[in-house]
């Protein structure tokens, strides 16, 4: 079974306490439609568990498929360097259909981030190394598409619909819930839709 090879540290973007029972790590791509589908589901899951769950987001841009994914990841990291990672992360997913420079500067404005600094960061690829490091760590951990979730370090191979995620998290907590997680029915790949 694939396991997380890069442990969660203070460098990670996390929501929820480090002492949480369960850490859910998501490797995601801002342009991936399945990640877009997963975004509100993950928020519901967070609501469900409150402080018992810590969410960590790491970048896994599939640039061959998604021409905007890398820049969007760098924009989120830029915001993160100024303490606004999650605000930017959320807005990028909420505006997934509009990814592109216009949106990035618009969002920077809304979050009161300097557009000059953003332009510089994008031109100089200031956050490329961080995004790349996330990607490589993901590959080493067996990330096999986006989104890929790890629950307490173990890759979640089931679907990411609400019921299945909640049930898998309960299991990791040692409090199995009656709702059984369903395996994705198709034989042709792991991927997002359920």
């Amino acid at each position, binding site marked *: 079974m*694939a396991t997380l090879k890069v442990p969660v540290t203070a460098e990670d973007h996390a929501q929820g306490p480090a002492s949480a029972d369960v850490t859910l790590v998501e490797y995601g791509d801002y342009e991936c439609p399945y990640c877009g589908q997963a975004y509100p589901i993950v928020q519901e899951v967070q609501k469900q568990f409150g402080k018992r769950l810590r969410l960590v987001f790491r970048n896994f841009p599939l640039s*061959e*498929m998604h021409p905007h994914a890398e820049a969007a990841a760098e924009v989120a990291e830029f915001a993160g360097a100024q303490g606004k990672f999650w605000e930017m992360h959320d807005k990028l997913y909420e505006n997934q259909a509009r990814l592109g420079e216009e949106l990035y500067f618009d969002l920077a404005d809304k979050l009161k981030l300097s557009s000059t600094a953003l332009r510089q960061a994008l031109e100089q690829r200031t956050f490329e190394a961080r995004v790349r490091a996330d990607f490589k760590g993901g590959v080493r951990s*067996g990330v096999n*598409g*986006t989104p890929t979730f790890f629950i307490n370090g173990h890759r979640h*191979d089931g679907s990411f619909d609400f019921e299945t995620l909640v049930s898998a998290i309960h299991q990791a907590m040692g409090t199995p819930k009656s709702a059984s997680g369903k395996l994705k029915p198709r034989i*042709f*790949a792991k*991927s997002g839709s359920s």
Partner: protein
Amino acid sequence: MAQSSASHVVPIQSVGVLPAGAVAPNFTLRATPDQTLTLSDLLGRPVILAFYPADWSPVCGDQMALYSEILPEFRKFGAELLGVSVDGAWCHDAFAQNRHLHFPLLADFEPKGAVAHQYGAYRAADGVCERALFVIDKKGIIAWSYCSPIAVNPGADGILQALEDLPK
């Protein structure tokens, strides 16, 4: 008393993929509608052989698209990546273009699945290849193999580990 004929029973399913230490069966398969590729031509460098069930699996979780993204990591080891399925060369061609794949997809098309069969990676019940991975060393010996549950894209961690473990 006549003995039972158990020893004559023909297995209907392969018993598993070829293990590490086995010689990688040589083959020549179509890489494009008008070109073929022969495994032994690649002796001298490691080869990653990735059997997969079918072209056109769902977009973001697609194993071949993932490997194409990771290609630079494989190339650091001087390794050559080959995808193999029972789809025909024209199908592969369209699939590779659509998914921006930058490595050969081989058509194990006629006789169907013959190469997959030799590697123990044919799924007779479904008529497709298993999701099976092989890392072949520069001498043509299988250094690592893995057959993933068909519904689970195995990612690339095992491949990278196997490449790293190859003798320098």
